[in-house]
């Protein structure tokens, strides 16, 4: 449902020459020559028949050194009017592409990332600098000819080596060579490159290690008195090359790595990935219902968990310490339930391509039910403390407004988009698992200020608990012998195992996304041929795009609002950096 129809895409051929339209399991890609790209995108954006106003993602596929041209750009757009997505592809001749920032400002970071990771140049980009790596870094890590372990060049002696000198044998002989790390000079150059034309005398640095940044984000503020004139963000301190790892590892084996992206809501990260892989295998509709209900239930619990952490730290940042203690009390119960069901509290790795790895243990539903019954009362408690409190109101109301235009322009998703009045919720637009069967509302704000973002998330907690109730009710009707994992009818053709050994995914491509606590998390999997490893995995991170609006929304605001804005955007560095 959520992809443009073939007929509609065929119509484009009347206006543009040399379009190739390819349908793949309902996912429609349009390939265009580079010269037409901007015009085509412009038409798609502005033509009332299409209205692909919202920028979702942009990435590059490296077709290996032998291929000429080597790099292919992939654009994913969404039309809020018709609730459709489209994928546009084009070849980057001479490793260059025209910039998209004239159409969607939000493409700025995506293009910088493409430049950083693949070395693609963008004609007309206002400041094409690195995104994650530092400025002097000589390589492009996501290129296929870049080795998985990096070029080993810098020596960082480990404790063992300090202790034992060169007497290292066997397993104790840790690899001494590590990949390059930036020097202080490099960092200085990077900082200057990010903000080339500063107007004030000093640039205020916030982070990378500051409790208020909730992780390693490095902010640069160009100030006029207390007011921010210009802002840029240096991220990448937690960049681990998750996309590169994905290309070098089996399908189930990658799931624990997704845990480590958005570690606050690791279940939701697993969810997005398994759904993308299931859609690529074309088995998503055949997953046992019980598994789907369990997954829906767990995903919503995880959303509550994530929002509770958000609320606690957000209130803490704005000076309401008690809130932090209250939400962590509730959170502890969820963690306890998670530990009982999955064996881990934080990096959960419970979902599998094909279902879940084990059934719910005895008593799990009772534990969840008793928690979820209490929760709305607790949320009322929190609201009583904050919502009408005059200090809270004055620090949030009308602070850092994000307009509907911004949402489309920057590809904002999740609670940030909804607070600006855009009812963009993938659970409704492109339902996965059992979201078609449950009843819930999408909370939307109308102004798009920090206060709205706060209210929307609070309402989301309530809606989530509503969904959890429904899931429990449905799960009670199942038998203990119902399967929780997909059984292949023909294991020779399609082998699928809980531990992932011998699993092959077919050739093809897919983009699937789920609505995470931090926005739309999408996985674009591109497989040149069937195999045990994907050819390219692109992770469309909601937190990454949501963080980008920070640089705009903070302009003209006093520096104190940076805390409010960052908290209400709620990025997690593991996911922005990947």
């Amino acid at each position, binding site marked *: 449902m959520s992809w443009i129809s073939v007929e509609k895409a065929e119509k484009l051929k009347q206006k543009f020459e040399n379009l190739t339209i390819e349908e793949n399991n309902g996912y429609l890609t349009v390939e265009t020559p580079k010269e037409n790209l901007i015009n085509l995108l412009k038409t798609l954006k502005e033509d009332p028949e299409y209205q692909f106003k919202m920028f979702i993602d942009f990435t590059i596929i490296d077709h290996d050194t032998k291929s000429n041209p080597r790099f292919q750009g992939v654009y994913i757009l969404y039309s809020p009017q018709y609730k459709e997505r489209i994928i546009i592809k084009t070849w980057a001749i001479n490793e260059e592409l025209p910039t998209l920032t004239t159409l969607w400002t939000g493409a700025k970071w995506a293009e910088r990332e493409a430049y950083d990771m693949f070395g693609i140049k963008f004609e007309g980009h206002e400041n094409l600098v690195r995104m994650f790596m530092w400025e002097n870094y000589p390589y492009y890590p996501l290129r296929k000819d870049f080795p998985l372990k990096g070029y080993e060049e810098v020596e960082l002696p480990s404790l063992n080596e300090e202790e034992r000198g060169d007497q290292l044998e066997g397993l104790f002989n840790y690899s001494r060579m590590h990949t390059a790390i930036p020097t202080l000079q490099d960092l200085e150059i990077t900082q200057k490159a990010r903000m080339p034309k500063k107007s004030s005398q000093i640039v205020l640095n916030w982070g990378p290690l500051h409790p208020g940044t909730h992780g390693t984000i490095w902010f640069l503020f160009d100030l006029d008195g207390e007011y921010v004139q210009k802002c840029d963000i240096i991220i990448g301190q937690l960049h681990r090359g998750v996309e590169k790892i994905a290309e070098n590892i089996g399908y189930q084996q990658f799931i624990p790595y997704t845990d480590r992206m958005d570690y606050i809501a690791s279940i939701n990260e697993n969810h997005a990935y398994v759904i993308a892989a299931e859609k690529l295998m074309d088995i998503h509709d055949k997953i046992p219902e019980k598994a789907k209900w369990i997954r829906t239930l767990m995903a919503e619990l995880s959303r509550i968990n994530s929002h509770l952490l958000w609320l606690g730290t957000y209130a803490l940042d704005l000076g309401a310490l008690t809130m932090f203690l209250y939400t962590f009390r509730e959170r502890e119960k969820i963690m306890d339930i998670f*530990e009982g069901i999955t*064996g881990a509290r934080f990096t959960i790795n419970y979902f599998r391509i094909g279902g879940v790895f084990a059934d719910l*243990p005895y008593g799990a539903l009772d534990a969840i039910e008793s928690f979820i019954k209490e929760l709305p009362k607790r949320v009322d408690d929190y609201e009583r403390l904050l919502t009408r409190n005059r200090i809270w109101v004055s620090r949030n109301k009308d602070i850092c407004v994000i307009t509907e235009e911004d949402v489309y322009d920057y590809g904002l998703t999740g609670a940030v988009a909804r607070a600006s009045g855009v*009812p963009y919720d993938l659970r409704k637009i492109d339902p996965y698992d059992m979201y078609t069967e449950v009843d819930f509302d*999408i909370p939307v704000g109308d102004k798009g200020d920090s206060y709205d973002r706060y209210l929307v998330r609070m309402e989301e907690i309530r809606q989530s608990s509503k969904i959890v109730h429904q899931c429990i009710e449905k799960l009670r*009707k199942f038998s203990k012998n119902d399967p929780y994992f997909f059984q292949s009818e023909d294991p020779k053709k399609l082998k699928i195992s809980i531990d992932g050994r011998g699993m092959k995914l077919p050739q093809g491509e897919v983009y699937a996304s789920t609505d995470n606590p931090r926005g739309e998390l999408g996985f674009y999997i591109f497989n040149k041929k069937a195999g045990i490893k994907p050819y390219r995995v692109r992770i469309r991170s909601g937190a990454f795009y949501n963080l980008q609006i920070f640089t705009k929304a903070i302009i003209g605001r006093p520096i104190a609002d940076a805390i409010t804005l960052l908290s209400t955007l709620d990025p997690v560095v593991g996911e922005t950096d990947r």
Partner: protein
Amino acid sequence: MGIKKVGTKSQTIIEKIFFLDFMKGLSTTIKHLFKRTITVTFPYEILEPTIRFRGVHGLRNVDGTEADDFMSWIKKLKIKPPEKGETRCIACKFCQAACPVPELFTIKAEKLNVPEDHPHHGLKILAVFDMDLSKCMFCGLCTQACPTDCIIHTDIYDLSSYTRRNWVLNKEMLSQIADDFIARRGKEKFDEKSKWREDQTVWPLHEEDLKIRAKLWDGNIPQLGPNYYDQSDKTTN
């Protein structure tokens, strides 16, 4: 499609003058003032990890609870049939194949050095099994891949160490860990065929442990019952 607008009315004069917003907030804090503490005072009180907890690994020994196909695996891989108390590992390296960080395993099998007429001639035994837990993600994939239910997760979570080499566990240590764990909590987790018990509970149901856990649940810990309509009720012990 349900869309719900959020928003609140702005403060009224009365609310402003009489500080009603603060009063209401204070009522919440005061209410909580009289609630019980929920903090578990580690290390004086130690909460037992749940049954499925994925902690430090162990290698199980042969103890008569092997799955039915155990011997056929032994034959298939030409391993010397293990006695009671010897490791179940058949050096098949399935765990390594399923692991997201395969280099953390070092698994080697060795041919037995026996004369030709010995019944074990030509058979192998496990020689090396090292795991570098500093690289482990505790994801559980290895335990799900093991055909002989040899590698398991135990409930040990404190594995800090001064050197990285201490995180490398060899097969003796791993066997020891598993033996201890099985003696302690094996019954809760595994059935007679070494598979996960069907009636594993979401948390352990021992008296002392429930008392500590009840703290964390605000003093009113939920009673556990069956999940599904045809699941039998488990009487608490």
